[in-house]
């Protein structure tokens, strides 16, 4: 029950996802479609599980007055500030959750979190981007050429610079990415088959 059924479920879903590609018969398609739609629903539940887990862990810390509980309280309050009006009034245009809360808290917070990385990338450029080896030199030189070539005045630096950057992106970079893609594809195919056939079971945990 604890291991056999999950392995069987994985096998059924995995096999139908593969078989539908090779046998486009309506009977196979119908079953595959149904399984896919079930998967979409279960995946949506998993997102809610993630949110519930965040709430559970932080709620417990608030209840026990654990370290940083006041911050956790902020998190719990923010969660309900969004969920309660969101579930009753909706999240579309014209609702308080969208026009006020989401627009004026989530968007600036998320945007600034990611924008802050610009500062750390600058710091890393100064402290860590050392040209110690041949490979590091190639990496640094390419980075500098690409950065110069993708700004509006690149053609003023050298008239062929934008074309050279296009070449770098579409030839040597594409070759490197292709090598990585082919390698990753082989790995993904092998892992996928191992999972479906029950050889790879680490996702089931220890018991």
């Amino acid at each position, binding site marked *: 029950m604890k291991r056999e059924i999950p392995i069987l479920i994985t096998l059924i879903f*995995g096999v139908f996802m593969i078989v539908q*590609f090779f046998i486009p018969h309506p009977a196979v398609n119908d079953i595959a479609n149904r399984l896919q739609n079930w998967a979409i629903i279960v995946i949506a539940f998993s997102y809610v599980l993630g949110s519930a887990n965040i709430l559970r862990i932080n709620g417990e810390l608030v209840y026990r007055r654990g370290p940083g509980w006041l911050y956790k309280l902020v998190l719990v309050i923010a*969660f309900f500030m969004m969920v309660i009006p969101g579930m009753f009034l909706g999240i579309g245009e014209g609702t308080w959750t969208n026009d006020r809360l989401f627009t004026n808290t989530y968007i600036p917070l998320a945007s600034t979190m990611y924008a802050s990385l610009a500062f750390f990338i600058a710091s890393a450029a100064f402290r860590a981007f050392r040209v110690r080896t041949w490979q590091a030199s190639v990496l640094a030189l390419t*980075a500098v*050429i690409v*950065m110069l070539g993708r700004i509006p005045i690149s053609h003023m630096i050298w008239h062929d610079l934008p074309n050279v950057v296009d070449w770098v992106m579409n*030839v040597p970079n594409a070759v490197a990415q292709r090598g990585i893609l*082919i390698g990753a594809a082989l790995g993904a195919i092998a892992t996928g088959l191992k*999972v479906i056939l029950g050889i790879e079971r680490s*996702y089931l945990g220890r018991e």
Partner: protein
Amino acid sequence: MDFFWLSVAGLATIAVLSFLYNDNPLYKVAEHFFVGIAAGYVVCAEFYNVFLPNLWNPLTSGTDYWLVIPLLLGLALFTRFSNNIGWISRWPMSVIIGTYAGLAVIGFASGDMVLQVQASLIPVFEPATVSKFSGDPSVMNFLDILKNPLFTLGLIAVLFYFFFSVEHKGGLKHIAVVGTTLLMIGFGAGYGYTVMTRIALLFDRFYFLFVEWLQVASA
């Protein structure tokens, strides 16, 4: 009212930026508020966009009673919170793992493997590029000569660096060096483009602060 909410957004931006000076309570509040709002938003978005249209409505209207299966499987995910019956959550997890594993096998094989290899099945050398270069010896025409050798021999060198578990010495070392050099060009390009993204995001924040909120600069 609008300026009030705009100021909330402005203060949220400053709260996150304050981390650059040092870690501080204002940043921590913003960080936790962000996670709470995000977690809440995901619940609402899934409710309106997936649960209602794909599960609840067809189930309650009687158009598809089979949907009781994904409903039960979805609810079974929450048994993870229990020590005794937590193993039941493996069933819905298997649905997710099985679906993605099956799709990945075909997706990676047809989308990445076959077509990427196919795109490199070209002549190793294109004589026309040399005659073009001899007619007009420009940098771009020279680089054009390298295109086909790189897509064929260069790709082999990259793959050689990845897959051959023999020691890279002697003549093999040179092949591996070509492979790593191409990879470094790829990583360098990756760094350059990452910088582009980060600066774009940062400029947007300054645009919001100085143009939209404080209105001390104009677009």
